């Protein structure tokens, strides 16, 4: 039993139960760990701040090691524990659970920004808190179109999985739709490679000057290293999961220099108003804000979006159930993120769970992420 546990009456003061499915030790543990820390930090901060309408958040976070079966098992545990919402992580678990969360009426946010998840018809309880991979790809193509002066060749290197493929077709469609004079080819990046010179040579024979990468940081960094070693005249445009400090650090400041990072969540170095609470919190905790990476900020604001939805539900005097949270998220209007996400607010509606289409564009300069443009939209 236990399907209501954390919900209860509008004016109960029981803690609000949230389940977190985190990757702390699996394939994406390098970004999954700070993301999870960011979420938990937010919870701590918010609770210290009086919680949500006076109620504390009780976030139960568990590692699923990036293994879908473990995610499913955790999910069932959370459902049984009576959580009212779930924070997921990867594409695999998000997809695997999207039908279940729909049936169980549990709002679900995650680090997977695939386009189909924004469609309430397809995934009624999934909310995407950032521009989708496809939107990021569109922004990237816009930028490339401009940077190249209207013609050029683009090679898309993507993780060889649905996560990697997610924006590939949409990108091609975008080029066509916009009538860009850009060549567009996509290449799968095999896992576990020790160099991408083979891929680069294919890109080279295509004549590509731009490499859009939809993958995590380590392989993207390897591409940067290889480009540097080969003295190739190519510019990398990283989307989301490789658009972070890890990419720059792993590649080394030299190899990363000049590459473009499409990152919807402003890193600490961008100094947005939304970073203030984070800094405050960190100073209290005695942590140096400089050491905080983008993924951490992503976690913080993903949790923020969820908390705001809950707050709106309670503020409306509604019982805190999944369905009510969903409705609140859809109807509450913009959620302020202090310009951290896409340089503006998030907003969901009943027809679209696409929080925003805007993203920041950064460039690696001197080993840091330097903002080129905030709130770029397709």
């Amino acid at each position, binding site marked *: 039993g236990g399907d209501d546990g954390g919900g209860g009456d509008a004016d109960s003061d029981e803690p609000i139960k949230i389940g977190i499915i985190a990757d702390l030790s699996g394939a994406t543990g390098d970004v999954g760990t700070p993301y999870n820390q960011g979420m938990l930090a937010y919870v701590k901060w918010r609770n210290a701040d009086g919680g949500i309408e006076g109620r504390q958040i009780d976030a139960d976070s568990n590692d699923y090691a990036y293994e879908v079966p473990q995610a499913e098992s955790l999910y069932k545990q959370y459902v049984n524990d009576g959580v009212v919402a779930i924070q997921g992580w990867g594409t695999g678990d998000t997809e695997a659970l999207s039908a279940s969360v729909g049936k169980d009426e549990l709002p679900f946010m995650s680090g997977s920004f695939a386009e189909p998840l924004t469609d309430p018809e397809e995934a009624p309880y999934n909310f995407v808190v950032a521009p989708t991979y496809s939107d990021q790809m569109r922004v990237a193509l816009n930028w490339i179109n401009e940077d190249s002066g209207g013609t050029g060749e683009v090679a898309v290197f993507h993780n060889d999985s649905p996560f990697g493929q997610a924006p590939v077709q949409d990108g091609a469609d975008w080029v066509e739709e916009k009538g860009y004079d850009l060549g567009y080819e996509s290449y799968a990046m095999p*896992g576990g490679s*020790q160099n991408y*010179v083979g*891929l680069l040579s294919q890109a080279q024979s295509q004549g590509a000057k731009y490499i859009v990468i939809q993958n995590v940081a*380590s392989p993207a960094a390897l591409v940067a290293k290889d480009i540097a070693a080969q003295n190739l005249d190519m510019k990398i445009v990283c989307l989301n999961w490789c658009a972070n400090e890890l990419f720059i*650090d792993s590649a080394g400041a030299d190899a990363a220099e000049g590459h473009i990072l499409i990152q919807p969540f402003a890193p600490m170095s961008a100094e947005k108003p939304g970073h203030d609470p984070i800094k405050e919190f960190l100073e209290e905790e005695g942590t140096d804000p400089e050491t905080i990476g983008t993924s951490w900020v992503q976690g913080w604001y993903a949790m923020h979006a969820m908390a705001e939805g809950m707050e709106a539900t309670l503020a409306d005097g509604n019982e805190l159930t999944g369905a009510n949270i969903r409705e609140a998220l859809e109807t509450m209007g913009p959620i302020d993120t202090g310009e951290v996400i896409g340089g503006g607010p998030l907003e969901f509606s009943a027809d679209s769970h696409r929080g925003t289409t805007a993203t920041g564009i950064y460039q690696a300069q001197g080993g840091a992420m330097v903002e080129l443009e905030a709130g770029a939209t397709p």
Partner: protein
Amino acid sequence: MSNFINQLAYGLADGSILALAALGFVLIYKATGVINFAQGEFLLVGAYMFYTAYVVMGLPLIGAVFFGVVVATIIGVLVERLILRPMVGENPISIIMVTIGLSMFLKAVVQAFYGTTPKNQPAILPRSSVEFLGASIPLNRLLAIVIAAVVLTAFTIFFRKSRHGIAMRAVADDQQAAMTMGISVRRIFAMAWALAAVSALIAGVLLGDISAVDQNIAAFGLMVFPVVILGGLDSVPGTIVGGLTIGLLHQFTAAYWDAGLAGVVPYIALVLILLVRPYGIFGETRIERV
């Protein structure tokens, strides 16, 4: 043409490192009959040990290498002593499972100490490139090939010439009979594991240098399987042939076909080769006489 040479160099470099990683695997199998699923984690541990010595403890390069070798030897011997020795004589599948458990354990321990973020390590091998027939080949790849070649040759000679080589094979064939020859099975086992750990350390350090010191190094271990099977589970020269073949296959598939297939093609090649040569290219045929 220049592109081809470039790919060749990269493929050979990856292949040499693969061969080194496979060498440890083969040594263990040859002497003890154990299939070590934790070979990738040995690479991982090796890379992190070196990182600890070189970056965290700030030892000079030589000192760091020495430290790494010593620690790797100790780990190899400990693993043999504590985990594999009690399993002597058990079903090979159970032993495989133990090494799988070991791999989980080692990986988790590395994670507990070093976290999941990749570590920055200053370049050990020069990053500059040399021009060759119009191709620019990074020096670190070339040096990786050279180092691997030296180590592999040393090992091959060791096994050809030294009586330990024969002793190892004898132990692999029949432990009891080896004992009656005065061969200390324990010593041979410990030696095999220690040597395997050391060769894994070298491979791990090279890998860490050309890509990054992170958890992905362990994943490289999975590629060891097609290598050793191709060359023959118990053949030292086989690791070289297998390593280079797989390295090149991988590289050329990525460069001239579909990079996504690069992970699969070695396996397809492997199955095809096995159908022609069921014990790999140099593997010892299992003797079944009645």
